[in-house]
């Protein structure tokens, strides 16, 4: 799995690409944690899942950890553009009800702080 970062004025967009399975989860977790521990504050954190094909339960856990870390840092945390297969996992696990999930990036950026 590949992860790209886009730093905007008031937000950092994280773009995971491919399959977020058990093996990829550890790396993704480190990258997300790095956002909160590195010197520059990330602004709002938005995970753009437009390129994400698959999420396992271990991958789902990283989203939860990210949301918790963001809450602790007082930073807004949102997820957007879930593909149907990934959306299903979020719905099934109940994550789409406790995390801020938006249909696309523009909505995620526009709506400001989501529920975390």
């Amino acid at each position, binding site marked *: 799995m590949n992860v790209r970062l886009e730093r905007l004025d008031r937000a950092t967009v994280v773009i995971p690409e491919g399959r977020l*399975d*058990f093996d990829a*989860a550890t790396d993704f977790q480190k990258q997300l944690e790095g956002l909160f521990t590195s010197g520059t504050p990330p602004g709002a954190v938005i995970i753009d899942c437009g390129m994400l094909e698959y999420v*396992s*339960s*271990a991958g*789902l*856990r990283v989203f*939860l*950890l990210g949301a*918790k870390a963001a809450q602790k840092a007082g930073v807004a945390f949102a997820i957007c553009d879930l593909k149907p297969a990934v959306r299903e996992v979020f719905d*099934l*696990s*109940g*994550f789409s*009800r*406790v995390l801020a999930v938006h249909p696309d990036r523009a909505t995620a950026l526009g709506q400001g702080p989501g529920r975390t």
Partner: protein
Amino acid sequence: MTLTVVPGPVRRVAAAAGSPVQALADLLIVGRGPYARAFENLILGLIIFSVASIGIESIPGLPEWALSALHVAEIVVVAVFTFEYVMRLIAAKNKFAFIFSYQGLIDLLAIAPFYLVGLDARWLRALRLLRLLRVLKLQTHILETVVEERTRELAEKNAALETAQAQLKAELEVARSLQLAILPSAFPATPGCDAAARMIPATTMGGDFYDYIELPTGEVGLVIADVSGHGVPAAFFMAVARTNLRERAVHHIDPGECLAQTNDSLCAQNPMDLFVTVFYCVLDPKTGALRYANGGHNPPYIRRATGEVETLSGAGGLVLGALPGAKYPTHTVQLLRGDRLVLYTDGVTEAFNPAEELYGAPRLADEVHVHGGGTPAALVERICRSVTNFAGTAPQSDDITLTVLTWGAP
């Protein structure tokens, strides 16, 4: 002078093992300290000088004083070589083997002509060139010894690592079998019900589990669950989740309430931020009424006696262990005689084949529809075979767990 000169001191010195002479031999020949190095360099220098002097001596018309000087030098060289030979002999553990060794013979050939023929044996002294070769051979020998030593050290370290790894693997095996051992091996003897379950563990320790719970009301609780991630943390979390759920199941009849309390308890003891998806249902074997609650788990199937497959899609709640205070609605569904309940974990539907395609829920529903008419054990076997055949050579990344229950079977 004759060769017999040499064995003389050998006998003497051999008798005086541990004497100062022996200590000196050990220091100069066997030792690796500065004295041994200096002595080695001295010998090397003398070998080169001695070979060069043979060339100089052959120059015609050399003045008398030069020849005399060369003769004196030759006597000194032979004296030192003889001293070295004796030292080597004393230092050697097996004297006889040393004398007839390649090294020993060359060293002897370098000095023997002097004792046999005297100073005139100039051309025989060319045999000393062999000593140069010996030095080269010695260097190679030292290099080989070092390489051998390093190789041996490496092999020892590898062996130690292998032992440690084997130990760790054995311990993980034990943990794995302990984990498997807490899964119920048989469904409680309940009139009108029959059930079968199977878990195919992934290569690493996973966190799937299923459970049958005999409730004081005469009802039967059925659990299927999947802890996020793998390894020892997942295994521990699984054990904690199972115990928590079991304890509450016995005291709280409502499945949703049972999940809510288990969730709160898990959130309070979750240092690794793991979570577990749980489907929990309670069957009344007298009436066939099934009450269930879902904490983020794949919705199970009901295969009606007619062959139709339905999904238990009543709204669920959040996975357990993620956030305290989560609510889990309880739903009720009526089983009819001959209906089958199929619970599974995502290891079934998310099994990949070598072409990276998912097994998928439709395939599973199809198997349940077509082959669900027999015993629970037969259906469990059938689905497991279907999934493993599909996955083929692709590595199994998640536990595959399946439970099938029939109600009112004749």
